């Protein structure tokens, strides 16, 4: 499991870990039922505090990506990855709908809206 | 406690042999000065014991070994008890060393006696050297060392070597003064002639030796209880 942490990123480290593990799960590199390294082992390997890894795992757990079994460790949640992706897509749809409604009331044209989306995505890629 | 004693002796391994050589040198000086073998065992016992016990207290302070020891699963009581057991073993080692060295020197004296130059001197020395006297001297050495230990160990355990070594002469002076006063008092009392005559017999002498040893052991044990109380509150 490759996780790269950047000290110069504006995203907090626990967020970086969380999103990278999410990606690994979504792309299938981590399968349902796979065991994740313990909080302490991950902290050791990445040379960071265990509180950070704990926070990352807590967030992943609250989002439903992983489950922690007391005494055994943390595992990739079974079968939910698909459902969660569905959830994400639905949420993005509703947010985009909101943006479209705002654009209409604010007299912003479709083209302008699309340009804005492109701009945001571009800056995301840079950041 | 066993670990404490084992550790004490592991520290002293080199010194146990080294002290024999230095004692040998001092013994020759004492022997020539006093002209008698009787004093040798007592003197050697006390000297060997004092040298080695001081080594142990020096190790305690060096690099804060005593501080590290307290982080280990050994109680303060066991530390004190272990040190007392080590002290007792060192006294016995001193007595054995004293007897052995005396015998060695007597052997040398016998050899010297056959040389014309030293013959008279050696003969004079050997005249004061029957085995009863040597044995008595060794026991006296044991009793004396235990009494010294009874005063010294609580002081050292409470204060450590550096501070204790300053307090010690004062304590010894006090004890000596008390003993002298006691002696004065005893002299002033009517002499029990029968008792003195009895003491000069073999049985009487042995009884006296045993009595002195028992008193020393009792004082030694009492001193251990006091030391445990003192060490319990010590800041390290």
């Amino acid at each position, binding site marked *: 499991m490759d996780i790269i942490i950047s000290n110069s990123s504006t995203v907090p480290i626990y967020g970086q870990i969380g999103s990278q593990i999410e990606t690994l799960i979504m792309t299938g590199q981590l399968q349902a039922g796979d065991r994740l390294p313990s909080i302490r082992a991950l902290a050791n390997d990445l040379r960071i505090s265990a509180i*950070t890894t704990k926070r990352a795992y807590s967030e992943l757990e609250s989002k439903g990506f992983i489950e922690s079994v007391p005494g055994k460790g943390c595992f990739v949640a079974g079968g939910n990855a698909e459902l969660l992706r569905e959830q994400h897509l639905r949420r993005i749809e509703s947010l985009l709908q909101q943006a479209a409604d705002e654009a209409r009331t604010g007299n912003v044209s479709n083209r302008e809206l699309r340009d804005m989306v492109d701009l945001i995505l571009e800056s995301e890629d840079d950041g | 406690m066993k670990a404490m004693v084992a550790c004490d002796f592991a520290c002293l391994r*080199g010194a146990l042999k080294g002290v024999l050589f230095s004692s040998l040198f001092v013994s020759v000086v004492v022997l020539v000065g006093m002209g008698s073998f009787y004093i040798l065992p007592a003197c050697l016992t006390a000297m060997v014991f004092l040298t080695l016990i001081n080594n142990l207290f020096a190790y305690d302070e060096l690099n804060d070994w005593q501080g590290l020891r307290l982080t280990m699963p050994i109680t303060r009581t066991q530390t004190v008890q272990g040190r007392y057991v080590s002290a007792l073993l060192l006294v016995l080692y001193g007595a054995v060393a004293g007897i052995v060295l005396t015998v060695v020197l007597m052997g040398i004296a016998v050899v010297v006696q056959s040389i014309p130059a030293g013959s008279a001197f050696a003969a004079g020395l050997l005249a004061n050297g029957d085995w009863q006297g040597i044995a008595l001297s060794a026991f006296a050495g044991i009793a004396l060392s235990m009494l010294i230990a009874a005063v010294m160990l609580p002081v050292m355990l409470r204060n450590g070597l550096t501070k204790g070594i300053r307090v010690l002469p004062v304590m010894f002076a006090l004890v000596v003064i008390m003993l002298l006063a006691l002696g004065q008092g005893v002299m002033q009392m009517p002499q029990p002639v029968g008792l003195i005559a009895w003491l000069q017999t073999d049985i009487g002498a042995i009884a006296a030796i045993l009595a002195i040893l028992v008193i020393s052991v009792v004082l030694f044990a009492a001193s251990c209880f006091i030391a445990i109380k003192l060490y319990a509150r010590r800041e390290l």
Partner: protein
Amino acid sequence: MDNLLAIRGLCKKYDGFALYDVDLTVPAGSVVGFIGTNGAGKTTTIKSALGATVPDGGSIELFGQDVQAMSESRSAELKQHVGAVFDACSFPSGMNVRAIASMMACLYGAWDATGFERRCAEFGLSSDKKVKELSRGMGMKLMLACALSHNASLLVLDEATAGLDPMARDEVLDTLRSFMVGECTSSADPGASCERGILISSHITSDLEKIADYIVCIDAGRIVFAVEKDAITETAGIARCRADQFARVREDATFGDMRFMTHSYGTDILVDDRFAFQESFPDITVDRATIDEYMSLRLKGGIR
């Protein structure tokens, strides 16, 4: 078990120095870094925790049990699960490694002789070496090997890495990391397993930045701050201001009291949330904080 070590309200008076109301906790599964200037009270606190000194006030709980309320032999039993490492090799100078190993075997029920030998081989310590023949770094490694070889739950290091070169320090940190990963049997409940913890007092804050989860700072006998290490190295920041920028920041009330220090080249301000600060003041340079700078500003900075 929640806390391996919990010191609350510790008070201890000496001539010319006193510990006052010191709180220090080592939660199970965490590494606590203990910092402070020389003479601030780090060693005194640690010694009180380990029973070398008798406190004047406060409570000390080791593995959840009040150390002052228990018998001597019970507290000695608890020490079976504690390993201590000091800055100088404290073993008697006349003993050799083998003799120390046999002494440890007598003292500790869970002494792991093969593990100790393995660690000695890793560190390059031969059995015949006497303590006085060891260099400072090797002496410390010997103490560390001993502390790691009896299944301890809590490791206490007092300035242990002070005499080591940077590569040796990294090795020690790796050893500490693998210590943390292992599990041990709990002292309170032999059937359960518990996580381990380390209390490490050090001047070498770069080591703490690499391994600590919490940072506790003591100054003149009082605890100045006790925070998550990430709060210092991740969230907090140092804003480097020119005079006019500093004036602007002073007027802004949203960030509350902030510590600052003025140098000849500008003013450094300690900010608790560098992201929020950078958003409000995009033109001001904000760097991540190091433990050293954070401590320096907290202890010596003026308050805006």
